[in-house]
Each structure stands twice: as C-alpha cells, then as structure tokens.
C-alpha cells in the first residue's frame, strides 16, 4: 500500500473506529497511535519514491513540507490531548460521549487536511478544506458553554461564506482552463493546469484569484477576514487551538499558494504578490495592536497567530528565493512553536483554573518548569534567537530591506509592536508573586520539549538536506 493511501486511510479508519470506541483511555491511545502511524507514513513518503502526479494525488517538494509538518504536529497534539483531555474529564468539563465525538472528529479533521494537501484536484481540495473546517467547527463548540457556541457559530458562518467565495473562485479557474484543456476533470487537475496556465484567460484568473484569496484567506485568518480566529482559539479545547494555529491555517495558506503559483505562471495576469504582501502587512500591524489589550491568554496567542500568518503571507507575497525560503521556514517554525505554546498554555490554564492572564502571574515561582517551557515558546515566537523564527525573520527583514526599504520599515515596526505586547504579557505571566491557590501539573510536557528542541535545533543548525528541500520548494513558488 502506498504511503499516500496510508496517509489518507489511517485517519479515515481511525475516525470510524474512534466513533465506535466508548472507553476514554483507549480512544485517546488509539488516537495517538493513528496520528503516529500517519506521521510515519508521511516520513515514508518523504524518504521513499514519490508517485507520479495523477488525476487525484500530487506529491511535490511544496506539499511534502506541509504534509510532514501537518502529520508531525497532528501526532504531538494528539499525544498532548491524551494527557490533557484526561484532566478535563476529571474536572468534569467533558463527558465520555462528547469525548468520543471529539476523538472521531480529530481524525476526520486530520483526514480533511491531509487530503487537501495531497490532492491534485482543485475541486477536491475545496471539498477537503470544507471538511476540515466543519470538523473543527464542531470541536470548537465542544464545551457547550454559551461562549463556546458563540465562537463556533461565528466560525461556522464566516467559514461558510469563505467556502462559498473559494468555490466561486475555483469555478472561475475551471472556466478559465476549460477552453484550453477541454471539458471535465482534466481542467481541474492542478498538474495539468500549471503548465498550460499561460494560455488561460488572464481576466478570469484575476477575478478567480480575488475570490480564492478572500475565500481561503478567511481560513488563513488574514485581517480583515480574521474575526472567527481569536474566539475559536480561545473557546475550543486547547489541543484544538494548537491544531488550528499549527495546521489548519497552513492548509488554507497552502491552497492560496497553489493558486498564486498558477497566477504567476500566466504573465498576462496582475501580479498576486503585492496584494498578498499588503494583506500580510495589514494583518501583522492589526494583530500587533490587538495584542496589547488582551486579557485572555489563549486569545492573546490566537492574535499572535494572525500576526505570524501575516508575516508568512507577506514573505510569499514578496517572493524570490530568500523571501520564499524565509516564508516556508517561518511557517514551519510558527507551527511548531505556536502549538508548543498552546500545549504549555493548556497546562497553565489547568493549573490555575483560569484563562485570564491576571490570574497566571508569578508562574516562575509556582511552576518553574512550565514557566521555562512557556517562556521559551514566547521568546521564540517573538523572534528571539537562538530559535528558528529568528533565522526566518532575519532573512525576511534583511532581504526585504534591500529590495523594498519602505515595506521593510513597516515590517520592522509591526514586529516591534507585537514584540512589545508579547513581552509585556510574558513579564506579567512569569514574574511577580503567584496567587495562593495553584494546582500542580501532572500532564507530561514532553511534546513541548520536543517542539522547542526542533525549533532550537533549526535556529542553531539547519541540516543541509532540509535547506536543499526548502530551497526546492521555494523555487517552486517562484
């Protein structure tokens, strides 16, 4: 059985299985197992020979990056949720029934995302993204509190509109391709589209890209389409917040990138780069400002995700070898770091029984180990060395300043803005006298250390293979 099939089948089967398993413990274990197996399959795909691009599936340097990242974080998040969810059940916030649903949905979501990444058909891509979105909507509403339902509802409505826009864009792309590639499936197969893109009707492509950017951009969380993101992160179970930030945003961004490549392949179209760069900068600045007034720790990091998605979109919008490399690297680093942060945040909120930053002061006194974990994550995401985010921001800022000084200045200002807010909050969280009542943390912090270790290693020494691999992907992006 080919790795591709495995990557898709394992989550599908696991989802069905988990829907049937009543036992919480067992379900969690199966969940971890399935995610781990999927990750192994992805590794096999990475190392082994790649299948030739067909009507259904496509594996190239670009999406292999996303897939490996996706399955890895999916695995660690699953193992984190195994320890996290147990506490939630003990605390009575979740019932075994909801939990069964949760685990099943987790695998459905993984299936949707993997399919969206692997498929060669833009229609299927759209369907899979919608599937992943709907499954996360259900998980965001898991707690059934008014706020959770509120957040899920908001996410659902905005997501649906986004989906609709994306679909319209997809139809337009098909209409642009259909005269050239003839009717039927071939005109929707990515690997057919790209080589013939130059012959497509540029006007239709332009129109299509606008709808696609807004449609998928809603899922990426670009301002001003970001509204669903903070609430969804804040009200859902923490593992889902981690997966949302670490994975779903990337998947949506991946879709945008695919179509950007299509646009770039047609010289007659308007260049998509400036639009993406502008939206990226807007998101960066807006999120940077929003970070200042946050009192809810999960919402704080949700906005930081918007900020970093902005940076990444900006990087890809700038284009060029260095910027694309920086964008890919930043995306990978952000996924690892942000999910690690959400893991620690999960433990912290369980230890303090509150998501309010005001209640989480003095962490370095009450939970030194956890404080170190959180601090490392925040410092890393703030762009401080020796972590990988620093490398990507270094490349992005320097290369941009040499090409477009004005943009680089805005970028730097946004980075500084966000940095100040994060450090302000971090100082409040780590230091000072802790509140009297704090619970010890039993859950394992292993996934956090794993992620931070990877980020640290990437910051200090990026192996030549990975560099070559990313550079190849960057070249694909043009």
């Amino acid at each position: 059985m080919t790795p591709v099939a495995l990557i898709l089948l394992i989550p599908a089967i696991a989802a069905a299985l988990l829907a049937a398993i009543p036992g919480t413990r067992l379900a969690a274990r199966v969940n971890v197992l399935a995610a781990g197996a999927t990750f192994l399959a992805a590794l096999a795909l990475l190392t082994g020979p790649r299948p030739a691009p067909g009507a259904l599936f496509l594996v190239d340097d670009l999406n292999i990056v996303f897939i490996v990242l996706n399955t890895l974080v999916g695995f660690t998040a699953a193992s984190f949720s195994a320890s996290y969810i147990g506490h939630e059940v003990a605390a009575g916030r979740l019932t075994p029934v909801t939990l069964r649903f949760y685990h099943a949905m987790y695998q459905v979501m993984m299936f949707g995302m993997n399919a969206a990444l692997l498929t060669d058909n833009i229609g299927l891509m759209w369907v899979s993204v919608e599937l992943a979105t709907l499954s996360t909507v259900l998980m965001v509403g898991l707690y059934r509190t008014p706020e959770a339902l509120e957040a899920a509802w908001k996410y659902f409505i905005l997501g649906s509109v986004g989906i609709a826009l994306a679909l319209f864009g997809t139809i337009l792309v098909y209409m642009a391709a259909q005269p050239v590639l003839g009717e039927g499936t071939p005109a929707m197969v990515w690997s057919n589209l790209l080589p013939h893109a130059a012959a497509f009707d540029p006007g239709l492509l332009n129109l299509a890209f606008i709808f696609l950017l807004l449609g998928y951009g809603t899922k990426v969380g670009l301002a001003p389409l970001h509204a669903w993101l903070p609430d969804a992160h804040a009200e859902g179970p923490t593992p889902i917040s981690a997966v949302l930030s670490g994975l779903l945003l990337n998947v949506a961004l991946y879709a945008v990138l695919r179509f950007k490549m299509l646009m770039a392949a047609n010289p007659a179209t308007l260049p998509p780069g400036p639009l993406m760069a502008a939206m990226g900068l807007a998101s960066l600045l807006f999120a940077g400002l929003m970070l200042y007034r946050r009192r809810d720790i999960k919402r704080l990091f949700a906005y930081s995700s918007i900020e970093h998605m902005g940076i990444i979109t900006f990087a890809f919008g700038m284009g060029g070898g260095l910027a694309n490399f920086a964008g890919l690297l930043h995306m990978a680093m952000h996924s690892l770091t942000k999910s690690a942060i959400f893991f620690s945040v999960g433990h912290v909120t369980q230890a303090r029984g509150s998501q309010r930053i005001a209640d989480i002061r003095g962490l370095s006194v009450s939970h030194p180990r956890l404080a170190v974990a959180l601090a490392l994550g925040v410092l890393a995401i703030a762009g401080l060395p020796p972590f990988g985010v620093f490398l990507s921001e270094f490349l992005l800022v320097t290369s941009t300043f040499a090409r477009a000084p004005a943009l680089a200045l805005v970028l730097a200002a946004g980075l500084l803005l966000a940095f100040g807010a994060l450090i302000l909050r971090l100082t409040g969280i780590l230091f000072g006298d802790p509140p009297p009542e704090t619970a010890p943390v039993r859950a394992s912090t292993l996934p956090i250390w794993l992620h931070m270790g990877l980020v640290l290693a990437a910051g200090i020494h990026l192996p030549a293979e990975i560099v070559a691999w990313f550079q190849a992907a960057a070249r694909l992006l043009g």
Partner: protein
Amino acid sequence: MATLPIDIAHLLAGGLVLMSFLMIYQDRLSALLDVFTAHAVVLAASVAWQAHLQGDTFHLYLTALIALAFKGAVIPMALARIVRRLGIHREVETVVGTVPTMLAGIGLAALSIVLMMRLTAGADPLAREDLAFALTVVLLGLLMMVTRRNAVSQVVGFMSLENGLILAAAGARGMPLVVEIAVAFSILIAFIVIGVFLFRIRERFDTVDLAALDEVRGDRA
C-alpha cells in the same frame, strides 16, 4: 436559429437575478421565503436547461433535482416553521432602508456586468453572460446577508448566494463535481438551519451579548 436556446438560458439566469432583487425588496419574512422558493425553482429550471444544452449530462439534471427538492421545498418549509415558532413572520429587519439597498444591489449588478465584459472578452458568450448573472446573484446574496439583521433572512441570503454558485457551476461546461458541490452545500445549509433551531434563543446573528463576553473574556477594556 441557434441563438434561441442561449436566449432562453439568459432568460432563466436573468430571472434568477430578478428574483434576487425581489428578495432584497421583500421586507416580510414570509414573503421573503416565498420569493426564495421561486428563486430555487428558477435555479432548478436554468440548471436543467443547461443540462439540456450541454447534452446528456446526467449529473446536471440531478443537481437541478436536488435544488428543486431541497431548496425549493424542504428548507423553505423548515424556515417557515421557525418563523412561525418565533413569531417573527411580519418583522422588518433591514439595517439600511430598502431603497438604498436596492441601489447598492443595482451597483453590484453593474459592477459584475462590467467585470465580465471587460475581463472575459475571450471566453465563449454563453458561459460569460451566465457568469455575469451568477456573480450578480452571489453579490446580491452577500448584500442581503449584511443588510438583514434577522437570522432567517440571512440564511436565505446565504442560500441565494449559493444558488448563484450552482448557476455558475452549471454554466461552466462539463464542470465535474457539480452534484458533490450541491450536496455539500445542502449539508452546509442543513447545518445552518439546525444551528438556527439550536440557538432559537437568539433569533438573530446579531445579538452577541457583549456584556456576557466581557465577564468571561474581559477583552474589551
């Protein structure tokens, strides 16, 4: 001689646009639902005609059928029940007055026509004008969603938007997956309707209880 089928297609598509305008014009929910039913019927007709034009495309007929059955019958009834439950069938729920909304709608229609005419000079006329109408319907649906306060009317707006998508998909010759898409959207809308059922406490999307959010999130300081 060959122009007649195309003219009919245009007639149907244009009818869809007309229906959309009528929906924007309607300010009573019950009437709105009726117009929407008509909207769905016209869509079904136009899709069926497209199927006829493009030849033996079974799945387009299927799509038309789904549209007719689901959006022409099931959903409107469900919504009508909700409206009766909530006793809001005669409520006027527009944010901005009907006339400015109409004007905005006309502007949007003009915008989409201009876009199509200017951009897609190359594409074949049938697809092209169909697309113009479809885009208009989509935009009008969005316009309705943002100018109506009432959840039901927003659901209706979303569905009319989606009708526009189906129209576009059907207009695209030999577009695969149209059925899947139609099904997917039907599921989506079913979700929304269920949502409206679940949250009948708040019959609008609009009543986000800010105070409640504050005490939980405290993010609006």
